[in-house]
């Protein structure tokens, strides 16, 4: 593995290998000393052109637990605000000797550009590019689903080597702007799960109905009547990306049609888990009752995120290919 840019086209074998590695990484995080010497001497740069709390901290924690040096670079207060281009920023990082660059950018395709341009020699990890892809989030979602619903062992140890075959996952909300949905749609499908997307027509990307592996519903109630979901993933309504157009009449109406409240929660099977990539708009797409429910795994997703990102950094940086 040279870069981690997208889940589209990722083989099932690679995806399962990342999840298995993450499981071993998670096991090391229960120990008294959680730091491993594995990536000693490697430098990981977090290059964030867009605000982020949990993804940046998660990558930083993952790199530090593996003893890599971490340099944080955020566009705010940097030379980017003085007009520096992505290329010049990348060349600067290359000169500093970055072994891996974790990049978040508001433009779709920024990570791909960074990886293929030849500006930097290190590995590129896409930590979210515009409305396109966010592969480590999808991997941590898949890891969380597998840990809870495959194998039956509390530590998920029995799940090694397995995918998510036969499980049905609902992704609800702002599909149009969601890179989380973009990555999950491909990855969950690759791992054998059936994916149902639920959204108002205005928040669906053009052409999604033509993708045979995805089933589309326009209200949450219809979807809940049609299937017994094993996992339901609520997406944040991304108001910062909804400039210049009205996507739904009012927040109240959105909540009424697409919000996960107590009544809809009761219609889920008992074993179903409730997920949210965060940050949550409590009261909009998810009620406090659902967010804090016993079968909500939202906080656990954050912990799993560190393990998955440790796995990704290990697989990208530990082998000899990284030394080229």
């Amino acid at each position: 593995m040279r870069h981690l840019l997208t889940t589209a086209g990722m083989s099932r074998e690679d995806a399962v290998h990342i999840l298995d590695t993450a499981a071993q990484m998670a096991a090391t995080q229960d120990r008294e000393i959680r730091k491993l010497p594995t990536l000693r001497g490697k430098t990981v740069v977090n290059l964030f052109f867009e605000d982020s709390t949990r993804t940046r901290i998660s990558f930083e924690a993952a790199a530090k637990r593996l003893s890599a040096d971490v340099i944080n670079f955020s566009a705010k207060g940097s030379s980017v605000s003085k007009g520096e281009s992505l290329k010049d920023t990348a060349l600067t990082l290359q000169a500093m000797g970055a072994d891996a660059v974790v990049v978040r950018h508001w433009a779709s395709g920024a990570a791909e550009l960074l990886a293929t341009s030849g500006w930097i020699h290190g590995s590129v990890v896409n930590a979210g590019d515009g409305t396109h892809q966010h592969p480590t989030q999808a991997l941590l979602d898949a890891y969380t689903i597998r840990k809870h619903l495959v194998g039956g062992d509390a530590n998920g140890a029995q799940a090694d080597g397995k995918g998510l075959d036969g499980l049905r996952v609902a992704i609800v909300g702002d599909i149009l702007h969601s890179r989380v949905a973009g990555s999950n749609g491909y990855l969950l499908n690759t791992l054998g799960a059936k994916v149902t997307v639920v959204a108002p027509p205005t928040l669906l990307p053009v052409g999604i109905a033509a993708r045979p592996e995805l089933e589309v519903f326009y209200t949450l109630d219809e979807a809940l009547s049609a299937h017994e979901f094993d996992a339901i993933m609520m997406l944040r309504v991304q108001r910062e990306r909804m400039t210049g157009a009205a996507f739904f009449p009012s927040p109240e109406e959105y909540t009424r049609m697409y919000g996960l409240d107590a009544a809809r929660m009761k219609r889920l099977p008992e074993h179903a888990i409730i997920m949210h990539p965060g940050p949550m708009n409590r009261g909009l797409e998810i009620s406090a009752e659902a967010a804090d429910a016993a079968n909500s795994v939202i906080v656990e997703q954050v912990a799993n995120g560190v393990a998955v990102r440790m796995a990704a950094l290990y697989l990208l940086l530990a082998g000899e290919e990284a030394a080229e």
Partner: protein
Amino acid sequence: MTGTILGAPEISRAITRIAHEIVERNNGAADVVLLGIPTRGLPLAYRLADALAGIDSAFSPAERTGSLDITMHRDDLHRQPTRAIGVTTLPAAGLDDATVVLVDDVFHTGRTIRAALDAISDLGRPRVVQLAVLVDRGHRELPIRADFVGKNIPTSRSERVDVRLAEIDGEDAVVLRQGEDA
């Protein structure tokens, strides 16, 4: 000298003898924790645990045997293709103040054991760490020695020692082969 060095009966006798030596050295096996290094150290650790239980009834194989993966502590990670990470399982009682016996199949450069010692220090503080190996083939690159050795096999660096165990390979044998590059 190439070919099969040890067969199933010899391997079995070596394990029984090592078990007796462990009990003798530690005045019983009550505090002993066996940690097998995957892949082939692990089944050896379980066999050794059964042998210990046969000698000292105070030793409980299920509660006193674990697996120690050393991949993330290796010093040659950047020279090889990315390695898959194995499983580490520890006895519920942990390693603090225990007599830890590391179990591996072939003792060669000593680098694996160096990594294992680092891994152990991240997991707890045993009272003492000892090393049991089925085969010692020499060519140490670090000042590390084994406490319990099944068989010393003088080798040249170009030769390969393959340990085959029934749990993994379907048969018990230690085979010495000429290396491909020799």
